[in-house]
């Protein structure tokens, strides 16, 4: 207290700059920039395929979302942890309401009702539900630790089941999977007993089995992944072709060819485009950056004293990390296609905004403040 009082310049922005984690901001900005560069490579091909006259149709929109996303993240990072938590819970509530409303106003794309149309943009509320839910779960668990009588687990479970049911209804198996994994991770970080972990594992296993039999498109995708012969694995085949074309040094910027045949070159398969043009070494750097973001967030979580902030940051980092891993695994044909973007890199309005929102939350929770850091101090 005495030390902070001695700072000469107390302007709000400078105060923010001193307290925020600048390493995270640096990695975040680099990733966004890399995404824009890759969007320049991949999105004109995608725009041409859709028969648009403007080759920069997707790039312009990408730029717009990046601008809105970064601004939002920066503003959010200035919030106090308490206010940030409130906002996250509000986002969760809003997302649940909109997802419920989707049944009536939803906009169907590729056989799934995940989008709500606002003007020329379509938003996917489930993207915002994920960070909201993670923060909410962290809050509930932390609260329960403080007060053993608080029914935190029951509340979180209720919200989780509600969310998963709504996601499966859309249907969105990939997001349900991601949500379940994040939920499990927070559960784990929150130090809940092995019995609970086992129970959650069984529930998700059962859920996956039910989804497999109840949802034809999930079954179809999995069967296609398991027996590629005689089925249409066009996108993953093309992605693998692009990656192996790239080799160590890549074909060179703009020299990629497979992107012209990849329908989702600018979204789910941007990584394949990146490897084809920039090669193994640069893509290694890209993965390293994404890993560094996740690890840095974990490092901050490790040192945080506030149990809620620790769980929330670890949970959000888990979400970004798992999403990265799933996307890369899909690009490398290690898991069946999921419809998941590469965080901060892929084109996709909702995903970009939601990830920036998550980033803003992480920044807000990890800001230096009195008593936030340090081992064993209480």
């Amino acid at each position, binding site marked *: 207290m005495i030390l902070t009082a001695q700072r000469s310049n107390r302007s709000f922005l400078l105060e923010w700059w001193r307290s925020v984690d600048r390493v995270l901001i640096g990695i975040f900005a680099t990733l966004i920039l890399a995404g824009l560069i890759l969007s320049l490579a991949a999105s004109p091909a995608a725009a*041409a395929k859709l028969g648009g006259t403007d080759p920069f149709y997707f790039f312009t929109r990408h730029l717009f979302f990046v601008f809105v996303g970064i601004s939002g993240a920066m503003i959010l990072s200035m919030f106090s942890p308490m206010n940030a938590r409130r906002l996250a819970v509000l986002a969760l509530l809003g997302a649940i309401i909109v997802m419920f409303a989707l049944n009536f106003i939803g906009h169907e794309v590729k056989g799934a009702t995940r989008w709500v149309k606002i003007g020329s943009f379509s938003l996917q509320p489930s993207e915002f539900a994920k960070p909201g839910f993670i923060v909410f779960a962290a809050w509930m668990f*932390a609260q329960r*630790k*403080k007060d053993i009588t608080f029914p935190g687990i029951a509340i979180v479970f209720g919200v989780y089941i509600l969310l998963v049911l709504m996601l499966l209804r859309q249907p969105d198996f990939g997001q349900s999977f991601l949500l379940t994994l994040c939920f499990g*991770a927070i559960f*784990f*970080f*929150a*130090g809940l007993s092995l019995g609970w972990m086992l129970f959650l594992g069984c529930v998700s296993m059962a859920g996956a089995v039910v989804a497999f039999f109840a949802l034809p498109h999930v079954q179809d995708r999995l069967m296609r992944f398991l027996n590629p012969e005689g089925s249409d694995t066009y996108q993953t085949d093309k992605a*693998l072709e692009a*990656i*192996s*074309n*790239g*080799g*160590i040094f890549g074909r060179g910027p703009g020299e990629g*060819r497979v992107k012209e045949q990849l329908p989702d070159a600018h979204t789910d398969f941007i990584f394949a485009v990146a*490897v084809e043009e920039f*090669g*193994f070494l640069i*893509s*290694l750097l890209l*993965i390293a950056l994404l*890993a560094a973001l*996740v*690890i840095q967030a*974990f490092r901050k*979580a*490790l040192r*945080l*004293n*506030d*149990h809620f902030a*620790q*769980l929330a940051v*670890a949970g959000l980092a*888990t979400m970004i*990390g798992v999403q990265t*891993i799933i996307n*890369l*695994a899909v690009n*490398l044909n*290690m898991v069946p296609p999921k419809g998941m973007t590469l965080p901060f890199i892929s084109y996709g309005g909702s995903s970009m905004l939601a990830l920036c929102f998550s980033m803003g939350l992480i920044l807000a929770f990890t800001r230096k403040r009195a008593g936030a850091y340090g081992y*064993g101090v*209480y």
Partner: protein
Amino acid sequence: MNDSKNNARMARGLSEFIPARQLVVEDLEFKAVREGRTRIIIGVLVFFGVFLIILGRLAEVAVWHDAPPPYDSVQADIKTRADILDRNGVLLATTLETFSLHANSKLVSDADHTAELIVTVLPYLNYDKVYKRLTSGKDFVWIKRNLTPKERQAVFELGQPGLFFRVEPRRVYPSGRTAAHVLGWTDVDMNGAAGAERAFETELMEKPGSPKKLSIDIRFQNVLTEELQWGMGRFKASGAAGVILDVQSGEILSLVSLPDFDPNSYAAASPQTKFNRATMGTYELGSTFKPLTMALALETGADPNTLMPVQNPLVIRRKSIRDDHKSSTPLAMFKILSDSSNRGTAMYALNAGDVAQQDFLRKFGLFDRVPIELAESAAPQLPREWQDLTTATVSFGHGIAVSPLALATALSALLNGGELIVPTLQYRSVGQVQPRSRVIKPETSDMMRDMMRYVVTDGTGRNADVPGFGLMGKTGTAEKPGRGGYQERKLVTSFVAAFPHSQPKYLIFVTYDEPKAAPGTYGYATAGWNAAPTAGQVAERVITLTGMPPERQLAELLPTTTGGQR
């Protein structure tokens, strides 16, 4: 928290009882954070592990793999197709790589200028059409397919952006029109669409390395085409067809249909020229049918020396059967055939009966389509009902329409010792089993050889003779059916020739559609004046090509002889 307060509390702790609730809360929060840290470290380690697995997989796909194929290689996509050869190994069809010019109109900077330049090096292209394509706004437009290497180089040297080449296979027929109907053609995607290309599609595609040998002899094909073409011009015929058969093996040595087309540019050819008259066209071929009726008579026990009353009118169902060469005396079988008497032939058929006649013709395959490999093989047009008048007209080749190849095949069986052969377009090596079935007795066949030799020495086929080679033959002149009966001025003339007499090997069948009288034919347009000399010319040239030795004149063996003069 305040240091002094803390100190105070700790001091109190040593001396007083500490309130339990406060301690529990503080301890639990610390315990949770500490345990959370341990678990987060586990989580981070798991992450590291998975990231490493992903990196390993990335390295596997991107680095440790076979060298990526170069982008420009279109070669892999080229469909290969076996060459087609004639029986002596002459190349009839092959596949070449050509360059197809296409453009990405979005990359063309100056469409007007580019189009102008393209037209200067490819003058057969239309400027407006090229310009229209270059300004179409599409990524991919064809400008011209199948350019030669020279043309490609010329376009390449224009140095205009937005123009691209694609290597495309193209089927090429070095013999051009000569064997057009035999070979057929392939469509743009290299699928056999007609002729041998279609008939042997599977074989050509499955074994692209081993060329397909046809039974065709391109030299014979050339001779037959040339002579028919010359005759078509001389007699102003609307069409012509010809077949050369090996009567022993059934191999088709030559198959010609005129007017013809160039299979190298089949798309530009009119449908009439693509029509194969030799196998697909069916005609009432007239008197060339008569040898079959003679064989029928002999097989059913007729005596060739019995005189038939051909001088008397023959009226069946109020139709009078007329003869071109009227005879005032009764004639025997040899003379009936050599003078081509309709009355005599009809009498033989009526004596044999309609059932025997139908069975006989069916045995010779004349009631079915010829079982050759070509898809272009027409079924005959048979009489709807078979009365005594039908028996009479069919006996001299009217009222039944068959393809020239069908009749040539049937006539082969009369001369080769009495066995029906299966005509084929595939080369048959010596010693290969040849499907044959006996249809008449060998003695009948011997008699037929002599009888058809007599037609050339003493009858309507004199104009076909080739001295020294014992040519056998038969003319056929038929009026074409039209509205309200047969048309006297529209004829189909044909001639069948076979040689050598001692052991027939080659059978030549030629036919003209609507030939006219020409200078030197004394106003006649009948087969003896057009089809017969053409067949003779073809026979002479084929004999020269084969180097066949001349054989003894058989004229002295025959009962009435005047010698085989042309």
